[in-house]
């Protein structure tokens, strides 16, 4: 009896062992064979609601589930047919007429109609929903007035369903980047009946985004969302361009530790990562250059001040802190990924625009400013907290800057980290002194950076407000000539940098690890990779 039991045990153990040693037993090999893409996705996504999400890791998932009027070309980012098959632009550049694809369907089989877009944009602009991205649509006629409550009739806002498949949009001014706005998650359509079925249209806690509830018009459907474990999406057979979609399934893993992520990549658990631990960048670049990607990325890493709270209600203090950071040393010794030190907000050469305003790196002048503000050698300066979301990379930068400030200005800064969701909440409530920020352009235009800091903008979060700045950004929105527009941006950026509600630190590079099996994946400055073109194939 005993021996036979033992035999069974040994046989089971052996079979388990041999199974574990098989060539196919890792996510990358089985995934490539079955067109299942496994990717690291940073932190747990805070939301999958296109109107409420502001995080890049959320929009990575949302853009597989929903499709806007246009989709970007994977190489050039030129707008191409999405939910709209074609569009006409009026001579005054203010009226866009979109012709929706008659084959467009929701994942429940119902057709995508123009009224769905009107519904979604109405929702985005509802003041009760308080969507941080609502300002994306302020380029529409009367949209801002509706959001502010000056008009309550949505019919006056510049978006109309002419018929079932025709959507007409009226802009308040010619907006050169309008089409690229339409491939941003906040302008995506939502399925009206589904949203209504799981809560109020303006309820931020609406449960329609849960797996099983979600109805989308994108190439994939949400099949599983296990908190802190996985988000799984599968191919949507109702998608109009399903023939182009090669992947059967995508699995997003929330891993906020880059070291863990890198180990998973090395053990072939992931096809793609969101980042690379900085101490490993040099080694990959030297030994495995085919696996590491380092490319320009339209984004700025910065710190926000809470300008409503002392001591940062004084612009001299803010400038002094910003002036005493050695950004070159941070990119050389801490981040090590080819990032570019930046002394203003908009990344250099964004559509040909390079800001002239720059915060100097000048420690003596910074000390002078601190003395003028009443804190000579940091005396009397309160202990303030620097808040960042939990991550190795942010921690290292914060430690370096903490020490730079101490040496240069004699100020003590305490570090405090929170996980991504709690961090966003704390920041939104203004419950911080200095907070880490990062902004990735939503489209290639200086406006995507500069309109963030208009008074009460949803992503401003500093409490900073400057009327002249607001005016300039508004004017730039109405100006057609590029030179004139850029001049207005230059002036606005000068105001922003002079008053320093933020500390720009560096311009991002897109650094990640990618298995050679991943094809149809191209580099562009938005690091946007329309998923329907991606496929998996092994090189032999």
């Amino acid at each position: 009896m005993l021996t036979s039991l033992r035999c069974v045990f040994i046989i089971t153990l052996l079979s388990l062992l041999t199974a574990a040693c098989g060539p196919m037993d890792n996510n990358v090999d089985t995934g490539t064979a079955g067109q299942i893409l496994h990717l690291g996705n940073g932190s747990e996504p805070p939301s999958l609601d296109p109107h409420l999400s502001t995080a890049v890791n959320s929009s990575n998932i949302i853009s597989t589930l929903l499709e806007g009027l246009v989709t970007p070309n994977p190489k050039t980012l030129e707008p191409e047919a999405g939910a709209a098959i074609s569009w006409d632009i009026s001579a005054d550049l203010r009226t866009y007429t979109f012709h929706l694809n008659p084959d467009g369907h929701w994942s429940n089989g119902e057709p995508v109609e123009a009224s769905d877009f009107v519904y979604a944009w109405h929702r985005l602009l509802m003041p009760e929903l308080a969507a941080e991205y609502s300002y994306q649509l302020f380029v529409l006629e009367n949209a801002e007035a509706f959001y502010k409550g000056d008009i309550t009739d949505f019919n006056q806002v510049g978006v109309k369903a002419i018929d079932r498949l025709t959507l007409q949009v009226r802009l308040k001014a010619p907006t050169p980047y309008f089409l690229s706005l339409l491939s941003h998650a906040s302008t995506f359509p939502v399925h009206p009946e589904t949203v209504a079925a799981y809560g109020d249209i303006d309820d931020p806690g609406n449960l329609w985004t849960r797996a099983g509830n979600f109805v989308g018009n994108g190439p994939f459907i949400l099949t599983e969302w296990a908190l802190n474990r996985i988000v799984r999406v599968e191919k949507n057979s109702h998608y109009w361009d399903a023939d182009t979609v090669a992947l059967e399934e995508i699995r997003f893993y929330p891993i906020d530790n880059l070291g863990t992520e890198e180990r998973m990549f090395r053990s072939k658990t992931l096809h793609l990562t969101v980042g690379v631990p900085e101490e490993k960048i040099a080694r990959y670049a030297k030994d495995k250059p085919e696996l590491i990607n380092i490319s320009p990325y339209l984004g700025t890493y910065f710190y926000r001040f809470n300008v409503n709270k002392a001591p940062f209600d004084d612009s001299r203090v803010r400038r002094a802190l910003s002036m005493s950071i050695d950004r070159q040393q941070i990119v050389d010794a801490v981040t090590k990924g080819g990032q570019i030190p930046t002394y203003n907000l908009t990344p250099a050469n964004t559509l040909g625009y390079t800001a002239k305003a720059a915060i100097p790196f000048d420690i003596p002048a910074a000390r002078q400013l601190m003395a003028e503000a009443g804190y000579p050698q940091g005396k009397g300066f309160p202990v303030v907290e620097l808040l960042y979301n939990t991550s190795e990379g942010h921690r290292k930068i914060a430690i370096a800057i903490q020490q730079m400030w101490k040496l240069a200005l004699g100020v003590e800064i305490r570090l405090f980290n929170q996980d991504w969701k709690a961090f966003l909440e704390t920041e939104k409530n203004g419950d911080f002194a200095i907070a880490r920020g990062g902004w990735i352009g939503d489209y290639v235009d200086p406006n995507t950076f500069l309109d963030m800091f208009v008074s009460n903008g949803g992503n401003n979060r500093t409490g900073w407000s400057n009327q002249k700045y607001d005016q300039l950004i508004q004017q730039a929105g109405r100006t057609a000539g590029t030179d004139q527009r850029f001049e207005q941006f230059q002036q606005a950026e000068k105001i922003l940098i002079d008053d320093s509600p933020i500390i720009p630190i560096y311009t991002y590079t897109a650094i990640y690890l990618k298995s050679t099996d991943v094809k149809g994946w191209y580099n562009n400055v938005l690091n946007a990779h329309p998923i329907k073109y991606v496929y998996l194939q092994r090189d032999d």
Partner: protein
Amino acid sequence: MSSLDPSGEQGRSLWQDAIARLGQNRLAMLGLYLLAFMVIIALLTPWIAPYSYETQQLDLGAIAPNARHWFGTDTFGRDLLTRIMYGGRVSLAVGFIATAVALVIGVLWGAVAGYIGGRTDAVMMRIVDILYALPFMIFIILLMVVFGRSILLLFLAIGCVEWLTMARIVRGQVLALKQQEFIEAAVVIGLSHWQIIYRHIIPNILGPIIVYITLTIPSVMLLEAFLSFLGLGIQPPQSSWGLLISYGVETMEEYPWLLLFPGLVLSITLFALNFLGDGLRDALDPKASKD
């Protein structure tokens, strides 16, 4: 026969006996010396540390151990030896203070519950059960959120969680002891309850308590590292052994010394604690024969 004791020997107390027995235990003494060494270093660190624990040399970065930096430097160019010395202050303090808090609460609670017994025992142990059922991370996080983030509170918070097991162990031992004749004898000669608990019960349960202490100290050191990593304990640029190790793990392949040295120091301390704990348990056992 004037004296019952022909050799004229002085009587020796239990404690003297115990100290003598401990002195003969070489491993235990080694542990004691090592621990004393660690504590002295930790106390003297501000005066004897070779470098500043926070001054960075970003240009230098992480370099391997050499003549100037015996343990090498971390990725910010900070001297690792210095950081281990300062980290030791935090880790040893957390280890000892939090364990002491757990010890005091746990022993008192367990001894009282076990000694009084009956309904009091039932109520007291149900309270322990309820606290056990709370996920302890949530409990600590709650304490930290309510009382703010300071190192002292961290000690208390950890101590307040770790006493539960101690209380259970002590209660079990006391229940067994209570039935024995010498306790009955003590009751008969009219000792007060406190005297019985203090003079007879606690010395008899020192063995398991000490073993448990040697297990608690390392676990609270690691707990501190975990809490600090979540942003609830100490914050950079300060550090502790646990934190140094958890950061060392991440750069293990590139800069192995960042894991090796803090790991080594923590292991040595834990070994020392275990040796000493074993020795103390043997030495303090009142049932050990007097020779």
